[in-house]
């Protein structure tokens, strides 16, 4: 392809984020719903670690906002969570890049839990907090998926030569 590097990067970013957003509202059987990871959060964390000067807080906010629109949830509740995740990921990107893969997964778990906790507080404040312990499973599933997702996204990044 003869696209400019700028255009290549934009297409890759928009592509991966769109897929993540569609995966979050893809129909799932009810019993499997707790096992759906936070795709948007995972993809956002990856890009924050890979190109922190391009993808950071602003992108996080926009993605969270789009998620709110698709979910029909309180506008701003996921936006604030994703902003915080992006901020922390960018702040820690130098350490996280050095970590072995499993340790990275543990840190990603921490980031995802932070996001969930913030969203839970907000939902609790408006009286819509879920009362099941399985609320936390998406973060665990997300952390377990991280190493594989990391490899897939890294290959995509190398193929489109983004740095």
């Amino acid at each position, binding site marked *: 392809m003869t696209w400019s590097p700028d255009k290549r990067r934009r297409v890759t970013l928009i592509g991966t984020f769109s897929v993540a*957003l*569609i995966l*979050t*509202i*893809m*129909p*799932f059987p*009810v019993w499997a*719903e*707790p096992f*759906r990871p936070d795709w948007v959060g995972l993809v956002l964390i990856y890009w924050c670690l890979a190109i922190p000067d391009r993808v*950071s*807080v*602003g992108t996080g*906010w926009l993605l*969270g906002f789009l998620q709110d*629109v*698709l*979910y*029909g*949830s*309180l*506008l*701003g*509740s*996921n*936006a*604030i969570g994703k*902003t*915080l995740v992006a*901020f922390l990921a*960018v*702040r820690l990107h130098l350490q996280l890049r050095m970590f072995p893969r499993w340790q990275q997964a543990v840190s990603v778990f921490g980031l995802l839990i932070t996001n969930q906790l913030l969203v839970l507080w*907000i*939902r609790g404040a*408006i*009286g*819509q*907090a*879920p*009362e*099941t312990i*399985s*609320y936390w499973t*998406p973060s665990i599933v997300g952390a377990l998926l991280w190493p594989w997702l990391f490899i897939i996204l890294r290959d995509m990044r190398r193929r489109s030569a983004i740095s």
Partner: protein
Amino acid sequence: MINIFGRSFGAPSNLTRLILLSILSGTLMVLDHRGHHLEKIRAGLNLLAYPVQVIAAAPTQVFHGIADFLTTRGALRRDNEKLLAERQLLLAKLQKFETLEEENSRLRRMIVSATQVTEKVLAAELIEVSSEPFTRKIVVAKGSQDGVYVGQSVIDAHGIMGQVTQVSSRVSRVTLITDAGHAIPVFDNRSGLRMLVFGTGDPDKLKIPYLTASADIKEGDLLVSSGMGGTFQPGYPVAHVVKIINDSNEAFLTVTGKPTAQLNHGKQVMLIWGNKPARSGDTRK
């Protein structure tokens, strides 16, 4: 570089942006939750989300299409026979119902009551997309151009499913009775006891708080919507009581219910227009 009062600033740091965007999110949340100032914007945004929802629902749609195509002749014939038998049964019941309805309205006229029994019903297709994890919401392909309004009751063949909470011109979002924070006023069909049924966020579980040990309620009781508060249509089944725990250390009974409507399957729901009663305060917004 931005120049303010002679001092130059670089591009805002991530921390500054985090704080600014958090304030923006906070403002949005307050506006959305407290004042409902964003209804118009919301409707527009929901309309923009519609194509994405259709794309996300497409694979399941195709899958259903293939499954339909592969249905055998034998299965169709069996289904047909079963449906015909069911129809006979329902028609037989309906004969009785019509005379009862007539009698009911005559009696109501005698006591000068304005309530009507007949209601307008519209069937709506579900758009199969997931909502936020651990919320119970569904999206239906009917909107304000079909006359759908916020607060409208949504039912299926077995009982009340929930109420419409967001409307745009072509799609609307329905909050199910199992959503955490949702409440619906009901009465016990056996004893007439009035109570509130709350959602828990669990797909199959409802809770009924604030009942004391002396309350006349039994396992297996049918709870029927009472229409109090003016949001839900009265007289539709809502839940069965499945479990009552009487712990003497607690002030109230722990009562668990199971929705009668099939909230997790089915591809169609029904929107009902009753005679809209005066809205005397919502149970939920």
